[in-house]
């Protein structure tokens, strides 16, 4: 129900995405793994129209959009159907938790205040922040901020949610609460694409895993197959290095 077709992107002379295509079915949780600089975040940003692709097509529920050029009307419609969660949360500093969740509904969709707040409150309850609705972002922990950001992304009840390394900016202690919320969404059957470095999360929550390197998809499989029977040597090496760092000296022991 969601596809990216032949996405290309260069920064200067540097090819960041080389003809990348990706099909996502309803209810899929796709984890995109890969080393830094592999293009996974750029792919997600292109899908969110935060970075303009040089070429590529995007299909959502039968609607096709050009990823290089889109009318502002199409973009508005498209953005209502997707949610985006950032690595650095990007909560509005001048709005409370509730204000963050309701802003899009009120301003973009012109929803009356009461109705928007009703939705906002129930979403904040769902991410476990019923008691933090009136807090400004600076008064919330990183994990709480990211949960508010997830509630904000859910406000329009999107068909697909993009997560760009949602736990990379968090203290290790706080990643659990965020991953738990994402897991809940997965259990509800939400369609999600998650760029992540969390191997355990990918293993346990994702239904499918995409491994990227140098702007290309190296391997793509169900999560179970990906981790248990990686087909490519490079994938095997990545999984091994990412899951271990001290057991084995012969791989160089380097970890990111």
């Amino acid at each position, binding site marked *: 129900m969601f596809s990216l077709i032949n996405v290309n992107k260069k920064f200067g002379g540097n090819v960041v995405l080389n003809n990348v295509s990706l099909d996502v079915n309803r209810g899929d949780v796709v984890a995109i793994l890969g080393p830094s600089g592999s293009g996974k975040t750029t792919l997600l940003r292109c899908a969110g129209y935060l970075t303009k692709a040089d070429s590529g097509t995007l299909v959502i529920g039968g609607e096709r959009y050009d990823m290089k050029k889109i009318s502002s009307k199409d973009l508005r419609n498209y953005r209502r159907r997707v949610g985006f969660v950032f690595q650095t949360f990007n909560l509005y500093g001048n709005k409370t938790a509730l204000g963050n969740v309701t802003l899009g509904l009120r301003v973009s969709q012109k929803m009356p205040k009461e109705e928007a707040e009703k939705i906002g409150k129930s979403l904040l309850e769902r991410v476990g922040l019923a008691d933090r609705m009136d807090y400004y972002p*600076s008064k919330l922990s990183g994990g709480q901020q990211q949960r508010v950001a997830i509630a904000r992304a859910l406000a329009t009840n999107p068909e697909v949610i993009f997560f760009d390394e949602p736990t990379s900016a968090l203290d290790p202690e706080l990643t659990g609460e965020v991953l738990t919320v994402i897991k809940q969404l997965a259990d509800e059957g939400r369609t999600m694409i998650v760029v992540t470095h969390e191997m355990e999360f990918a293993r346990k929550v994702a239904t499918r895993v995409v491994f990227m390197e140098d702007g290309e998809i190296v391997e793509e499989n169900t999560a179970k197959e990906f981790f248990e029977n990686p087909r490519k040597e490079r994938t095997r090496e990545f999984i091994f290095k990412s899951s271990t760092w001290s057991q084995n000296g012969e791989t160089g022991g380097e970890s990111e």
Partner: protein
Amino acid sequence: MNERIVSELIESFGKLFMAGIKVSIPLTLASFSTGLAIAFLVALVQIAKIPVFRFLVRVYVWIIRCTPMIVQLFIVYFGLPNIGIRFSSFVSAWIVMSLSVGAYCSETVRAAIESVPVGQLEACYCDGLTFWQAMIHVIVPQALRTAFPPLSNSIIGLVKDTSLAYNVALVEILATAQRIASRTYDYFWLYLEAGLIYLIFCSVLTVVQRKAEAALERRR
């Protein structure tokens, strides 16, 4: 200082103070609010990179910043009547000072807007907001917080600049003092008193600034 001067100063204090309340402060507030609106418009036109306007506002900032305010005042008040446009002293001063605030503060405002992390704008886009909606609801409110101290500086400067309007026959604090002194020849004491009045008004603004900053800090 004899008794005559003391009673004269007590009497004139009320007059100078009222000149401040009735003329200098209204002129400051009117110029500052108009100027700030201009400043935001100029800053946003530059940030949004609107082609022709962007060039026009640069020319405006260039001209205003590179000519003395008193020359601008003379052009508006004494010069424009030659081509049939007449403004009162107050309106002339208001126009010139608004344009000045607009030009100077536009740079402050632009820097403050650009200091808001780009992720805030991206989050707005993902929420379906347009550029201008994002500016109004998210970016500018946060930029104002950053711009508040330098803008306070500008408004305090503006209170003192209203004394320039003395030159276009506006009877503000300085002109009132000058009129009284020209009768009694107590220039020293009256100009000292005029300075005191400015000191009082600007001190009040300084306190207000501190209080407002603390209030803004609580809302984040």
